[in-house]
């Protein structure tokens, strides 16, 4: 029992230390993107609201191992005429992470994003002028052990 108590307090303590030490992820991530990018992000957010549910694959972890490196993959290679793939983190100040205009490349993108807190992550695919989305909630928790 005593050990358990110690362990618990140890975890709490080190987690705080980790968060401070790493200084990696602010609780709210409002990124200093350019105005141009912000406009693109707003446009993506607007089309997100209007988009119907996509039939493509969007792979993102349910629980991020490390919020600084969250692997995400959008696979719409089965769809015809994919012209754009965007990835947005809904709870970010500027939600858009990246937007890929594809001209000749297949409807497939894999990358890694960073997330400061739990948020729905939205993949948007535009094919033949129609935009659809798939949303996946990614949980981010502060790590316990630093070292």
């Amino acid at each position: 029992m005593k050990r358990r108590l110690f362990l618990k307090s140890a975890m709490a303590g080190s987690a705080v230390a980790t968060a401070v030490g790493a200084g990696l992820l602010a609780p709210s991530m409002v990124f200093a993107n350019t105005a141009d990018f912000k406009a693109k992000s707003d446009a993506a957010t607007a089309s997100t609201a209007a988009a119907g549910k996509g039939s493509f694959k969007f792979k993102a972890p349910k629980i991020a191992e490390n919020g600084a490196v969250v692997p995400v993959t959008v696979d719409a290679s089965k769809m015809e005429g994919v012209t754009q793939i965007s990835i947005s983190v809904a709870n970010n100040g500027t939600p858009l992470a990246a937007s890929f205009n594809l001209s000749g490349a297949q409807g497939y993108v894999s990358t890694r994003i960073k997330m400061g807190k739990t948020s729905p992550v939205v993949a948007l695919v535009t094919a033949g002028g129609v935009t659809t989305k798939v949303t996946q909630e990614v949980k981010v928790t502060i790590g316990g052990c630093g070292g």
Partner: protein
Amino acid sequence: MGSIKLKPKARKGVIGIKALIKHPMETGQRKKKGKLVPANHIVHMVVSHNGTVVVDADIGSTVSKNPYFKFNVAGAKGDTIELKYKDNKGKTGSATAKSK
């Protein structure tokens, strides 16, 4: 900035293009010793296949440090793949590789 690792590999008529760019991708929001680290991240990236642009991407600082990307393009062994990027400070980088 740093180096780019570009690895195009052809398989069944499709080149899988893997790229890893050494870049801090600073958001401009991170503090180090009480001071904000200035934003320093890639904003634009273009991938070409035998001289034709196949991917033109707008990149934000939400993309992880030392960004990794993978794209697929129809092609064959020996094709030329080029990647170019520009960051918010105006610095550019590029790499070219022949597909394996």
